[in-house]
């Protein structure tokens, strides 16, 4: 292993990257796009739901119930139909996602200390929005009810305050998303670029040429891996920075836990990219294989969907997804401040994956280049 030759290989790789009209913008745009997408768009928080209120009571109390919904920030009262019959067409047409029905006599029964039925109609077409909206609505009502029967005076402002504190899902979803995103970007970036790296050189004949120069296979491999690991580190640092500064994601754990987790995961990702590169004969094949692997990885890793909500039959499969452990380690380290000892299980699993996949890839790399 000669440092001078390794430097040369890395220099060449960066030169080529600089001239790659597709890859270069991808390397920079990807983390920005993903942070925006996963920080904002994929969040589980639902805001400003168009809401229709059917107020059959017409009292100060019924108006304050409606105001409580409006003030929560999750509901925007856009329609005030006169009857429940007029509500359904609004929901059908999508003008309203949520309907709130306050029956005649609500105020009177509340003042007598009776339970008040409050109708909440949710558009079930979008199951995610529906479950979130109904969740918010029923919680809002519960607090309203509780406060009122306790005899509090300024009902509206109190509800407002309680709801804001308890429901802060925009913060919550970013908190879970950003640490998971760090792992996902590492994997995606390294796998996509690594898988292309060797196939391209083989297709262009430069691999053949390299093999008859004094460059050793170890130097060649490291010269391929190093530049892209460096790029992935810059991308991850960017995501962490934006997560901390813009989304206010807390970091309660130790840097070493994160570094250890990411280090092991890097080896796994490099190994997978390299394997794809070795089995693929063309760059298109390599791209297809990456896609084939990425979709189940994203779905089953727990990065986008909680593993707890998956069908029992699918859950065992998630143990085969290396990203699952990376997401678990990163989230726990960021949010819960878990130590290396706390995360021994997932870290050990990652070490096994790293050793197996990277080791296999390197052995195949040596053999494949000779045949």
């Amino acid at each position, binding site marked *: 292993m000669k440092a*001078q*030759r390794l430097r*040369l290989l890395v*220099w*060449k790789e960066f*030169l*080529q990257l600089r*001239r*790659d009209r597709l890859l270069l913008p991808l390397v920079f745009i990807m983390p920005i796009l993903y942070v925006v997408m996963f920080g904002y768009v994929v969040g589980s928080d639902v805001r400003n739901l168009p809401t229709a209120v059917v107020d059959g009571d017409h009292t100060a109390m019924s108006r304050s119930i409606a105001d409580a919904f409006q003030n929560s920030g999750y509901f925007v009262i856009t329609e005030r139909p006169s009857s429940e019959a007029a509500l359904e067409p609004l929901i059908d047409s999508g003008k309203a996602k949520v309907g709130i029905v306050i029956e005649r006599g609500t105020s009177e029964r509340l003042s007598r200390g009776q339970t008040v039925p409050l109708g909440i109609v949710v558009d079930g077409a979008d199951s995610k929005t529906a479950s979130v909206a109904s969740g918010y609505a029923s919680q809002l009502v519960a607090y309203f009810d509780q406060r009122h029967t306790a005899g509090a005076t300024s009902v509206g402002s109190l509800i407002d305050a309680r709801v804001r504190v308890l429901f802060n899902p925009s913060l919550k979803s970013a908190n879970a998303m950003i640490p998971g995103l760090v792992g996902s970007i590492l994997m995606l970036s390294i796998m996509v670029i690594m898988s292309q790296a060797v196939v391209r050189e083989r297709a*262009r*004949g*430069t691999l*053949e*040429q390299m*093999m*008859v*120069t*004094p*460059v*050793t296979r170890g130097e060649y491999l490291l010269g391929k891996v190093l530049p892209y690991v460096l790029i992935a580190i810059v991308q991850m640092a960017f995501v962490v920075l934006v997560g901390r500064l813009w989304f206010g994601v807390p970091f309660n754990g130790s840097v070493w836990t994160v570094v250890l987790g990411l280090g092991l995961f890097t080896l796994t990702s490099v190994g997978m990219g390299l394997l794809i590169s070795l089995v693929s004969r063309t760059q298109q094949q390599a791209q297809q294989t990456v896609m084939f692997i990425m979709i189940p990885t994203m779905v089953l890793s727990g990065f986008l969907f909680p593993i707890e909500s998956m069908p029992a039959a699918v859950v065992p499969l998630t143990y085969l997804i290396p990203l699952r452990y990376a997401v678990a380690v990163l989230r726990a380290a960021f949010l819960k401040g878990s130590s290396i000892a706390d995360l021994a299980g997932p870290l050990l699993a990652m070490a096994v994956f790293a050793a197996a996949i990277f080791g296999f890839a390197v052995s195949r790399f040596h053999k494949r*280049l*000779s*045949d």
Partner: protein
Amino acid sequence: MSLFGNRKQAVPQAETLGDDAIVVSKLRKTFGDFVAVDSIDLTVKRGEIFGFLGPNGSGKTTTIRMLCGVIEPSGGTATVMGYDICKDPEKVRCNIGYMSQKFSLFQDLTVDENLRFYSGLYGLTAEKYAERRAYILKMADLEGRETELTKNLSVGWKQRLALGCATLHEPKLIFLDEPTSGVDPTARRQFWELLYDLANDGVALFVTTHYMDEATHCNRLAFIYRGDIIAAGTPQEVKAGLAKDTILRLDVDDGEGALAALQGNSAVAEAYMQGASLQVNIGHLSADEADLPAVLGSAGFLVHGVERVEPTLEDAFVHLVTEQGGRA
């Protein structure tokens, strides 16, 4: 013209070496059950242009890869520039140049960057690099194009630059795997002049080619077929195997049709198209005995002329392959 301005910088091992650049003995390579190279022997002398010929898939590239220390042989031994290819593959790679039909330069690097990269791989000093760079730019006629991307160069330029990169470290042995395929005739001739210059400077050249005119220019040849060397020697020696045979060149309207009509004719040992005319080996028969115009005439082909020609290398190889019971 001397390709290497400063002979003192020659690879030091060359001094201690005998006359042979490559010595191969019983070299064999199998992939599973398939025998790619079947116990071949050959010797390449220093300063010699050695032509390594054979149809695609006959074991040419496998042999070159073994000799370059890229793959390990399954059996036999070979010394390249004095180093054993099994024990010292890295030493072998330091002392050879290699250029393939793909002109394996980095297309998205400039001329200068390619030169700098390869000079670094071979560990050239800064002064040496400056000297070699100037020389190669001149040789490849690339002065003034140093900052151009390699992919924008014409094929002839790419090819000369590839040769330049392969000779940056002044190897005394260069492997050229079909270096001129896909190159126009003018560029091919210019390229071969560069090869002659190298050979005059004592550099051994191991060349594979499909062009028979190029093969004729080699000092010695080996013809590999199905992993076996079935003929070797100077071009004259190879052709001499056919000296007693009569080769006729037939000028026919429909050459392809006439060729089909001659298949199975007892008088015809071998027949194939040579440009627009038909080349026929009638063995020990004379032109009159075979009387091909009559044979073809009865099949409906008008023969405009029959001429007895000296056997070419191509005739020799068609003959050799036919003898092996296969098809070229």
